[in-house]
């Protein structure tokens, strides 16, 4: 969030990412790795919604990519009642699982079921295998995960938040693709998001 003055002239293009996944699949760690480029050895319990913003300036002279990263508080099954507002306007959903934990892989299906399919929630889904640094403990093979992703019409990535493998590449790649798609979209309104005026609703939605 540096250079606030410098970049204020640019228009922000907001893209919302959701990070879902089973307990201890590394959602918060992945988020922190990407947004702050740190990895805390300490475990964190996310309560409520964890939220980070990442700006990318060098993509286009006129626009500034603003990635909103949402990380949902899950933990137990009983938190399923997370309101649909969480999913609203999300451009891409990343469902994480731990490649060393079969249960977290099975949970991906549950998460996929929970994603609402309404007109205001059009998003791409990515399935992400985390913790690939623990190769020796691996239970879910790459092939199995790819197959699963194909069956669910999702793209598959493998990352390691701890060793910082592929985390930035993944989010950057997806973010950039959505960014260009958005600014090249003829329907994209050049709404000026002045700091005081509320942004129009269509501003956040990729249709």
């Amino acid at each position, binding site marked *: 969030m540096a250079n606030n003055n410098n970049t204020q002239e640019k228009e922000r293009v907001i893209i919302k990412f959701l990070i879902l996944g089973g307990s201890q699949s590394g959602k918060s760690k992945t988020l922190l790795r990407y947004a702050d480029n740190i990895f805390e050895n300490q475990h964190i319990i996310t309560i409520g919604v964890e939220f980070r913003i990442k700006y990318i300036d060098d993509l286009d002279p006129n626009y500034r990519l603003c990635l909103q990263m949402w990380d949902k*508080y899950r933990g137990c099954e009983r938190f399923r009642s997370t309101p649909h507002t969480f999913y609203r306007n999300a451009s891409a959903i990343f469902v994480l699982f731990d490649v060393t934990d079969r249960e977290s892989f099975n949970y991906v299906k549950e998460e996929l079921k929970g994603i609402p399919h309404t007109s205001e929630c059009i998003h791409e889904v990515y399935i992400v295998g985390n913790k690939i640094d623990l190769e020796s403990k691996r239970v879910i093979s790459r092939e199995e995960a790819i197959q699963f992703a194909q069956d669910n019409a999702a793209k598959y990535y493998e990352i390691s938040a701890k060793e910082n493998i592929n985390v930035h590449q993944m989010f950057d790649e997806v973010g950039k693709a959505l960014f260009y798609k958005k600014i090249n979209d003829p329907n994209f309104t050049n709404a000026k998001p002045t700091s005081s005026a509320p942004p129009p609703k269509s501003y956040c939605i990729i249709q």
Partner: protein
Amino acid sequence: MDTTTNSTTTEEEELTTRPATKLHTPAAVSIPLTTTTTTTTTHATPMSNGMQENDALDGDIATQGVTISTTSTTIPSIDTTTIEQRENNDFQEIVSLIKENNSNQLDRVLNEIKSRIGAEQLKELLNTRIPDNNLTLLYYALVLDCYNDLVLLLLLNGSDPNQMVTPLPQASSNNIVLESPESSSSSNSNNRAPSPPPTESSSTINSKAYANAKTDTVEEFYKKPASLEAAIHYTVRHGDSDKMNLLIDNHADKDILDSVQRTPLILASSNGRMECVRCLVLAKCNITLKDILDKTALHVAIEQGYDDISATITSNGGDISLRYHYKPIRSSRLTFSSSADYTDFNDVEILKRVDRYGNIKDQPIVKDEYTRKKEKKSVEKELSRCSKWLSLLKKWNYSKITSKVKSKSVKGVPPRIRCEVWSHLSHSNLQEALNPNLFETLVNQHSSSEVVIDLDVNRAFRGNIFFRERYGVGQVALFNVLKVYSLYDTTVGYTQGMSSIASVLCMYLPEKEAFWTLERLMNREKYSMRDLFLNGLPKIHKTIFVFDKLFVHYLPNLSKHFESINLGSMIYATKWFIIGYLDSLPFNVSLRIWDLIFVYGYNILYSVAICLLRMFEKQFLGKAFENCYEVFRSFETYQFDEDEFINFVIKHKIKSKKIEAIEKKYVPVGGGSGSQQINSPPPAVSLISSADLIQNSVPLLPNNKKDKKKRFSFFQKK
């Protein structure tokens, strides 16, 4: 040594292609066919795993070799019939091929024999013991560290992996059986049948091994082979997971016991063979079996300090409580978890960085003269407050919280008497007196929520010195409190967020008191936090509804702004209302808020929320969504003047009548799956969750107003 020169010329030719360096066991010396015995080359063997024990044997080989060789010379003289001679030759050819580790040749030979005598006969032949060391061919191949395909070949052709074998002697252990000439000659008659191990000698070895176990240290016991074991035990002891998997795939019993009742899993755990443990657990072996010392694999792994193995076992159904409750005295290994969160600092370094709440900071805490003086003053103040509190506690009025108590707790409860004050305020001490043995009874029972609790204990307040050590004192207390609560109230069980509240209680209260205080926080009407953690989180929806109304009423501008940028209160306030600001504000401030919760009840949280927003209103106004969120995040590091803030909250305290009036307007909307529960009264707490408790005739806990009266009368009588 050279007395056993019975070899054929063909054998010798084959042997020259591959030097007979495989002779590193005394038994090997005795096989007649291996007459080119050059025992001096033992150390050049490619045996990697068996190296240690066999190296030490070098000295013994000469003497033992001689004794055995006398035996082996007698074998051919007894076998008289040609068929037997032939089979004997076949057998010895197989043995020699195993010794050469020549799987291609063995494949050919086995096929040839199979075509000649049939599969059944071959199977029988393969299960014949090698006369000199009484090993099975399969076990022998393992000892010689043969290639995997050779082992597979034996298995596919019918070698029984579950036969019990007396392992070859180790340098130090005494359970060696050298067969006397008589016994071997007698076993010659049933040579072809899989000879069961001589029962007499096995029993003696058994008792010997057991005696060893008693006299040796436990560690040695687990490092030694038993007097009788199956092939899988050998692979596990040497950490050869590939061969172990081969055996398991070919009908080896994965729960087979050796003569001291150790399963392969126990042996793998005791020897730190992580890969074997993983494969065994994945193969769904029985993890609950106990050995002769009455220990399961998990006991052993904890004892030996193999955290990754313990974790693997518990994550596959092992008893998680054991990791908290089983504390063997360990000599060498440190108890830090394998993730080694803090091992890069030594303890003194950490102590320098601990603040007064036990939280470990990034930097050593340096105090200048001013802060020291200030601190000294505050400590003196606290001491005088302590004595005042103590006199208050002596004549505590349970039925009413006096204004004196209120004003004192607004000033902050001194940490050293927080235990007493909190339990008096919450009435947890009364509850405890009513159910004196409940905690002790439940703490030894198993809860279905253990797995989830274990996960969360691992990450609750790990930055605090009390909870820093994995499975340390603090974590044990926290685990016990949460587990007992999950057993006590099975409807709620365990829900994320409870761990944070329980952690704070555990910091100031002993585990039993912490449990009862948690119980009161959950079930007493004044706090009724139970609804927060029920399925579907009914209370949080209600709370957010009330909060939104209050927000609009007190801060109309800010609420409009938040609405315009689509920042719903669900996003930022959920956390506040579930765990009472524990991770959203500086720790000292949230502790003071908790003091207030105990006095004023749950509803004080609304006042805190409104006051917080009011304080930061100017920073929020005019900001975009993400900047507002940054402001929320900055709360945690904001330098609050805690006294000022708390006074501010009390000054603007929202009357509970007002809150109740709004609550009445709340109509639960079907949002989540469990939201229909909101209006219905919560299911009665299952106060007695086990038959034991009924037997102990624990009185039901009073939960409504009528019962409250009873409780007080009970206390006054006392």
